[in-house]
């Protein structure tokens, strides 16, 4: 068998560049108004409702969705530009980003019409924050070992159990969660899970914060004790969530957020190296630039394939694998290259602060949204090895 990977050299069309100008102007205004500081990631609240509403007002949340649900019917490539400019500026987009990237598209595909009409326009306005309820105390990467149970009762389902490592649950309005509706079968261990839309204000749901090694909250444990979810909040096929999971992965895995999470250390390194870097600095910087350019060209190519209606699952997984490993190593590379710079040359506060922040968040980058090992398993499957 010949393995075939496809990465056509997609170029962003002219409308993307007009949009980019508009996005940069908007972010510059927000920075000038003190909404956030682009040079200090991790400072200030990354969940900013007022900011998300202003982003929504610009039409940049759910921007690829149909107009009847509040979207703007713009292209995946236009969304790509908005995402990358927000990420590079360290804009506080956490409140709307999960809904924009993955919860909204899942609802579009599987939610009943009246639920779509109710919820999607509110996502587009920047009013709603979504969390993802996948991991459980006994099931992280092994998604299909989930035990939290949904029991059929009159008019809906009764939920008991708990989710863990749930990012943003402390502020989320809704969660898209996987619950067990039947036991797995002998033939198919992935059988028996169903995807649900859960209103986080439902009685019987408790959110307990779990502090991260950054010293900040972020993770949560979400406990369900006889929480009721109505029938019309079932998404897709009962017991068949496993069939729905894979096609979303290319969206979730190939975006610019998968290699730009520590980008901020690179401009700061360039600042520290100055206009005439020594050979070590120049060579080290050049390699990082080439690697970044490559990742971005891969990622844009996958966005182009998604726009063309393809499902590049393997290519998307490769982008996330290479991208997250790279962004995880980037702070260390920058630290090495800055090691011998003359002290008076370096804005130690800025570079030092950024490297400290990046070093502490780096371990999570190859874990969240599918670990390196899981991704490589998916890639191996795509290669015909399993």
């Amino acid at each position, binding site marked *: 068998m010949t393995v075939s990977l496809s990465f056509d*050299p997609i170029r962003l069309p002219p409308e993307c560049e007009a949009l980019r100008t508009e996005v940069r102007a908007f972010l510059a205004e927000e920075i000038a108004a003190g909404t956030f500081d682009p040079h200090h990631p991790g400072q200030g609240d990354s969940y900013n409702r007022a900011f998300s509403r202003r982003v929504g007002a610009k039409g940049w949340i759910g921007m690829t969705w149909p107009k009847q649900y509040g979207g703007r019917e713009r292209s995946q490539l236009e969304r790509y530009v908005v995402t990358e400019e927000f990420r590079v500026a360290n804009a506080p987009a956490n409140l709307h980003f999960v809904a924009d990237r993955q919860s909204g598209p899942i609802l579009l595909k599987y939610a009943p019409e009246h639920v779509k009409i109710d919820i999607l326009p509110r996502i587009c306005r920047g009013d709603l924050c979504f969390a993802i309820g996948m991991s459980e105390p006994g099931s992280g990467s092994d998604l299909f070992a989930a035990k939290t149970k949904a029991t059929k009762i009159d008019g809906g389902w009764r939920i008991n159990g708990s989710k863990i490592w749930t990012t943003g649950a402390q502020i989320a309005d809704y969660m898209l969660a996987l619950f067990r509706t039947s036991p797995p079968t002998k033939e198919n261990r992935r059988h028996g899970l169903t995807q649900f839309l859960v209103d986080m204000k439902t009685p019987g749901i408790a959110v307990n914060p779990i502090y991260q090694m950054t010293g900040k909250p972020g993770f949560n444990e979400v406990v369900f004790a006889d929480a009721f979810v109505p029938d019309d909040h079932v998404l897709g096929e009962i017991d068949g969530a496993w069939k729905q999971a894979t096609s979303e992965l290319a969206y979730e895995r190939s975006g610019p957020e998968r290699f730009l999470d520590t980008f901020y250390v690179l401009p700061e390194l360039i600042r520290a190296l100055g206009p005439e870097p020594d050979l070590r600095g120049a060579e080290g910087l*050049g390699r990082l630039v080439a690697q970044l350019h490559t990742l971005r060209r891969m990622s844009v190519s996958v966005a182009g394939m998604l726009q063309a209606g393809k499902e590049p699952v393997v290519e998307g997984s490769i982008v996330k694998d290479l991208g997250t490993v790279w962004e995880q190593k980037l702070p260390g590379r920058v630290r090495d290259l800055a090691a011998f710079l003359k002290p008076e040359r370096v804005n130690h506060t800025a570079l030092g602060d950024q490297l400290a922040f990046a070093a502490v968040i780096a371990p999570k980058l190859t874990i969240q949204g599918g670990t390196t090992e899981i991704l490589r398993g998916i890639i191996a499957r795509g290669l015909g090895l399993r």
Partner: protein
Amino acid sequence: MPGERDHIVAETAARILADFADPLTINKAKDDAWKEPLWQALSNAGLPLAWLPDALGGSGVSLAEGFAILGVAGRFALPAPLAETLAAAWLLTRARLEAPPGPMTLAPCRPHDRITLSADGRLSGRATGVPFAQDCRHIAVLADGSKHKVIALADIKDCRLSEGRNLAGDAANVVTFERVTPRRTAPAPDGFDESSLMLMGSAIRSVETAGALEAILSLSVAYANERVAFERPIGKFQAVQQNLARLAGEVAAALAVSGSAADAIAQADTFDEAVFLEAASAKIRTAEAAAEGSAIAHQVLGAIGFTQEHVLHRFTLRMLSWRDDFGNESYWAAELGRHVARRGAGEFWPLVASR
């Protein structure tokens, strides 16, 4: 973006190479008897002079189509000067010079080599690592004239060649010009210099490397699915799967960045900043992929992949050698780093985002 015609030209190349330059067959060949019919078939299809316009005696295919041919050549680890002839013809075309039939090579192929053309029309200087020079009759040269850059066509027999081979055993000679009278010369276009030639050469080697990486991925996956150890095909072991997934990542990176560089050159009028970023990045990243990817493929194939008999070395050793042509990854990284540093921090993201 690859169009329909790219595919037709590339398919023609693939058919010819499968018939006349199958790596397994060449690997077993006792002599060079395969070379003549191969070149004949390539010439009959108009592939070596693909980048020479019809008016100059070539077949005048687009840059994109030509790069597609080179991707195929990489997939076959072609041990013949097809890429070099394409590149030489492309260089001659910059000055509207006609190209002779037969295999050609070009000089310089290393960033710091310089050749001069004297006022009385003689070429002097030294070019190192010139691929296939001893197998070619002609060489296209970019030289410093008294006022501007000049492109020339010279006979190899008029130059002094030192014996040399790259890692894969292909000829790679030091070519010394000692007051050589070229067959013809013409001024290079304004702004075209050694750096432009190095960028074109880098894009060419990047595309070939990506092709070779595709081949070793297919070969390694097939081997892992067949080879049984510990009562299972080794491809069923997670450790092997993870390695092959990493190899796929390197292949993907090489394909994406080389395809992007080829597209950038195909779309550009001059060797501007965009082409510099794209082609330099392609050379850097594909060279890294060649090193990483070769190591993984050899690890998967174990002892059999380290034998003369197996074809794996035909791909891995060529890729590793190609890293040194037209500026190695360290050279381009330093160039790119200096460029980015000169532009300053604020201009960095706009540069990346412009591609």
